[in-house]
């Protein structure tokens, strides 16, 4: 287990008198599909913000690939190989979809500012490779046709997909998805979940998923951790989670039976 891709040790995040996350231990194995669930305000997004460096934990440590990422800037963590999507979509609205994906490839370019303003050969090669890869990623996410559309003008469902394409462009080894299916109808969200499952195989990456829609998390995640008031109250495979009385009591309630009924 010491070979976990990402390891959180006793991570605590305190905002004034409020402990948003408390003594959280979490291990994400390489190449896994891991679910993080919990009721509203349980601290799920705070966990993402801790992993990506938006917040620095008040106590505890976070290791990615055996190296501490404590106190690194978000951009430095992204360059180490963790990228994310946002719950409230944060696309670069004034840019076209292809540009949105290109921006995330920024860290992999070698051409400097001088190459760019003087249009050297290195710049041209870089640019061509970037555009090509952007198009590939858009096609993977089913957005091949939308390359020249402004991100802000994209339909809502496609915006969610573009966020994932953009996060993939950073060539992550760990992809964090913050409620990727929020606001999608059941059919759309099921399609998206199949797509996410495919991404893991295709790119060989680990995915940590926050999700509200229990059915989809149960359907695709191998392991699930449950947060309630910043504390991890359960962890295990979907079956264990479903039958854990603490989880049922704290959060799932009738939802779990509904999920049972459909499976």
């Amino acid at each position, binding site marked *: 287990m010491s070979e976990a891709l990402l390891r959180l040790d006793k991570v605590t995040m305190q905002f004034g008198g409020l402990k948003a996350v408390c003594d959280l231990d979490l291990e994400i194995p390489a190449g896994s599909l891991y679910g993080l669930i919990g009721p509203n305000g349980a601290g799920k997004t705070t966990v993402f913000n801790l992993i990506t460096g*938006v917040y620095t934990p008040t106590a505890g440590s976070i290791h990615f690939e055996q190296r501490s990422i404590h106190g690194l*800037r978000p951009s*430095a963590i992204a360059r180490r190989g963790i990228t994310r999507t946002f719950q409230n979509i944060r*696309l*670069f609205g004034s*840019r076209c979809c292809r540009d949105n994906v290109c*921006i995330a490839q*920024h860290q992999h370019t070698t051409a400097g500012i001088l190459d*760019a303003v003087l249009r050297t050969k290195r710049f041209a090669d870089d640019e061509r490779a970037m555009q090509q890869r952007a198009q590939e990623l858009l096609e993977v996410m089913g957005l091949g046709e939308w390359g020249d559309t402004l991100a802000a003008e994209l339909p809502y469902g496609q915006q969610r997909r573009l966020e994932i394409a953009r996060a993939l462009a950073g060539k992550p080894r760990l992809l964090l998805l913050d409620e990727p299916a929020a606001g999608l109808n059941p059919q759309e969200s099921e399609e998206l979940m199949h797509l996410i499952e495919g991404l893991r195989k295709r790119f060989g990456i680990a995915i940590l998923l926050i999700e509200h829609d229990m059915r989809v998390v149960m359907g695709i995640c191998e392991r699930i951790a449950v947060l309630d008031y910043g504390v991890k109250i359960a962890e295990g495979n979907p079956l264990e989670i479903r039958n854990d009385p603490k989880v049922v009591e704290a959060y799932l309630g009738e939802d779990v039976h509904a999920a049972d009924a459909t499976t």
Partner: protein
Amino acid sequence: MRRALWGVGLLAVIWLVDYIAPRMVNAYIMQIAVLCGINVILAVSLNLINGFTGQFSIGHAGFMAVGAYGAAMFTLGVGQSWVAGLVAAGVPAPIAQGIALSVALVIGGLVAAVAGYLVGLPSLRLRGDYLAIVTLGFGEIIRVLILNIEAVGGARGLFGIPVWVSLFWVLVGATGVVLLSRHLAHSTHGRALFAIRDDEVAAEALGVDTTRYKVLAFVMGSFFAGIAGGLFAHFLGYLNPSSFSFLKSIEVIAMVVLGGMGSISGAVIAAILLTALPEVLRPVKDYRMVLYALMLIVLMITRPQGLMGSRELSWPRFLKRRKAGAAA
């Protein structure tokens, strides 16, 4: 090779314009043309900071002043004797002056870039209105400093700067700045700047070092503003701190906003328009500035996104539109 040809061709065109223009129009119009060119550089450079990156600097005249005084002091201290030496060695005067001027402009730009770096640092912690206040303070500090340093002429101003700048140099400078800024916009670095403007948190999360790019925008913008200042100094032959007041900064901001935040072609058009307009309105005498202000207000009400919005003039778009028009 192709690009070298383009460059030579462009220079030839600019030289031709410089050769023909004085024979077609009077000195007054030539002067306005030069000021248009300088303002184009200023507007395009501020557009890098305010338009591309979405920061709010209102101290651009400060960078221009630093560049103007830096370049002028170099010329007065060193450049002039270079020219004298080169001419004595048999180099034609215009070429000798061109060499000295180029060096002076680069030095002016570099001094301004250092100032830009210093002002850019607070931009890491501040944004919007707060950053605006800091840059406003910077602009005023520069002006008051110059006003009180006797070595650069103080309140009397700096006299005796050789007049080496003709329309040719201003056109070369403006064309260069526009081209460089256009190339930047279409590169990964330009996209990083746009990303910061659209959503700084997302840009950072995707690996864009927002710290570096925000400072970089300031450094590049002030470098070009410094060059504009150097051209200004060697065009008028006289510098006075009052030319670099807060009003000058506002004038440049008006150009960027009117042109459309982030649009290079918009900045160019608006700079020319706002420089020429007060002159065109001279016949109405006392009402000139009233009319000028009124036109600005009407324009902003009817086109709040600016003349060009965030678009650029480009051949493909123009051709597409013509084709669409023909089909309809």
